[in-house]
């Protein structure tokens, strides 16, 4: 039986809880997401555990559905950025030459534009739907993953065991997926935790600015936006999603740290 350190345990618990709630939102949520069920900004009570929002909807229900949207978008965008970024990064490192140059300079070009501005421009001309949102976030984030994957792979690419595979006559596909990828996984997994959190923050920011998830659908950034005026009157509704974002960030990172530790100590793999 493996031992899980307490920090990872806490991380696992909260990450698991958030994902569980996100997946089973329709069965867990006590009310309808869009229906006003009480007064505006009711305080927490037995009926409404977290109170109600700016137009009287149950805040807990909004939070549950919001978490579903936020976590889904962030997860999808992260998967997209990692698949794309790491495959392209590893390919660039293995093939090298002008392919590497062309791809790396293109990535530099994209990275030179601030991500948020770039996303705002794209989303203001495109219809804001979930697939587009995911695509834009995933593509933008993949440049970062590309950089990391390429840097890691360049190091591994010069190791003797990769040379041995090349001397054997192995094609690029084997070299990338069987020799390099397993050894690049640890730093990529650690980065994945971090990237997921950035995706959560990014989609929240976009929604807060009105270019992300559109009402009446809920997401955490949107809930902050809807309830931000309440802060002036001492109503804490806007803080609830903020706390959710913070706890999710920290717990995902705790899990990523633990995974990283485990994979590096196992099998003598290098970090």
């Amino acid at each position: 039986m493996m031992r899980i350190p307490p920090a990872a345990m806490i991380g696992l618990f909260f990450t698991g809880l958030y994902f569980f709630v996100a997946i089973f939102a329709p069965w867990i949520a006590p009310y309808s997401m869009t229906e006003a069920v009480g007064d505006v900004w009711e305080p927490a009570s037995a009926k409404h555990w977290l109170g109600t929002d700016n137009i009287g909807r149950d805040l807990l229900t909004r939070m549950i559905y919001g978490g579903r949207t936020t976590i889904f978008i962030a997860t999808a965008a992260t998967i997209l950025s990692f698949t794309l970024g790491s495959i392209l990064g590893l390919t660039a490192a293995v093939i090298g030459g002008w392919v590497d140059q062309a791809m790396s300079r293109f990535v530099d070009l994209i990275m030179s534009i601030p991500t948020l501005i770039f996303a705002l421009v794209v989303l203001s001309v495109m219809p804001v739907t979930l697939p587009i949102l995911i695509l834009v976030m995933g593509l933008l984030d993949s440049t970062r993953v590309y950089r990391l994957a390429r840097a890691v792979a360049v190091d591994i690419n010069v190791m003797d065991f990769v040379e041995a595979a090349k001397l054997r006559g192995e094609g690029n596909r084997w070299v990338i997926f069987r020799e390099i990828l397993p050894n690049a996984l640890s730093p990529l997994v650690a980065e994945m935790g971090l990237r997921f959190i950035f995706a959560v923050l990014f989609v929240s920011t976009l929604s807060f600015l009105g270019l992300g998830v559109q009402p009446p659908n809920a997401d955490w950034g949107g809930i902050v936006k809807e309830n931000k005026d309440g802060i002036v009157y001492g109503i804490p509704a806007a803080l609830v999603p903020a706390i959710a974002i913070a706890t999710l960030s920290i717990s995902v990172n705790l899990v990523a740290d633990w995974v990283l530790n485990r994979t590096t100590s196992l099998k003598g793999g290098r970090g």
Partner: protein
Amino acid sequence: MTDALLKVKNLKIGARIYPPGEKPKDIDIVHGVSFELEKGKVLGLIGESGAGKSTIGLAAMAYGRGGVELTGGEVWVNGREILHTSRADLRHLRGLEVTYVSQSAAASFNPAKKIMEQVIEASVHAGKFSKKDAEARARDLFDKLGLPDPDNIGDRYPHQVSGGQLQRCMTALALCPEPDLVVFDEPTTALDVTTQIDVLMAIKAAIRDTGVGALYITHDLAVVAQVSDEIMVLRMGDMVEHGTTDQIINNPREDYTRDLVSVRSKQHEGQAPTDNPILRVENVTARYKGTNFDVLHDVVMELHPGQTLAVVGESGSGKSTTARVITGLLPPRDGKITFDGRELSADLNGRTREDLRELQMIYQMADVAMNPRQTVGTIIGRPLEFYFGMKGAEKRNRIIELLDEIELGEGFIDRYPAELSGGQKQRVCIARALAAKPKVIICDEVTSALDPLVADDILKLLENLQKIEDVAYLFITHDLATVSAIADSIAVMYQGKVVRYGPKAEVLSPPFDDYTDLLLSSVPEMRLGWLEEVIANRKMESAGN
């Protein structure tokens, strides 16, 4: 209370290890070692890696590397116990009374500071000498250690002197504060044999002149025999034998010591070349991309089926580059490679799968030559799958057959490289090469990273496999003892050229060219007084010229 400069009593050292998939556990790495060292004497600590020799050496400064703990026993320096002394006392001890010379001088010097600054730092900082006196002393030491231009060499940066010179600078650094004891930790291991001999002589003279006591740590018994008065043989944290150098070398009592003394005596009967070489390197000239000088000039050599060609030379002589050209990793500028009668494409990409299969390679560092995320079964199985399309039970049976051939057996099939010892790793690499059923295997310094006894076993294994599989080896090495143990013919390389080439008996018998003579006479021999003899011979020769 005692006359001994260093007295170690029942020293116990422990460490915490992290075995894969298990809880960390504490192990003992040195189990109660005792010895004494008088002022002005040199004690050689010898053993394989993991014997605890460096750990004991550092314990003489009451220091344990990260994760290592001095768990028991006593260490007395100059009549006081140092394992339980105050920090201030330790600070005075380390770097002033006891100093340390490490294996890699290049990694130990600060590259951003001049050599002189670093050599005098400890003495000046502790107020032992004034800056002026310390510098004068350093210059004197530079002179004694035979460094060129002793008055100004201190003004250079570490990268501006050669490896052998830097190692001597490090010795000067250790001797500068007039210590009572110097710990030499494998000071010549990273050097070429031709450089090693100068450094050894310098260290020996400096020890004699300054009258310090020294612990000389090395895995090479022939080297330690030249410098020490007494030798202690260690194995897995236990003392095997302790005696005078004369007794250990000429009259060892324990079996293990006897093995160590006779380790390099293996000889191989050289075979005459056949008519049709399997591999011909014809007038190859090569340079690396982005440079403007050739690293290989007009290299010619032939390898005959089922035989071994040893390529010898010091680092930078172009041995490994030759291997890269042959394998197609570095296309030559000029010349060609012929294999089994057909010309090989200069570039790796132009070669057929059959070309690749018949020419395999084994690397120096077995641990980076294997993917740490693949099991032994996958590593050996891949060539079978790739070249012969083997699958399932057929593949598994062949893997087990190969594991038996390299004397490891079926039990290793699911292990990861990290779970193997250095010798076992190299065996797996040999099996991977053999799996392709090659006609030629290029062995690039395959025994250099191994302990002498393990290296000996690998050489024996390679020789047996050559008989069974009828494979030819191109054996790249800097170690002439290895050459006589395995080669049929020899190519001596120097600065990118083949300076001497032919059947072994011919190459190793006089008359020699200058470089081969230097190389041959620099290999330490397992007898007392060898170093003095060589130096005396060289002095005579240069006087004669």
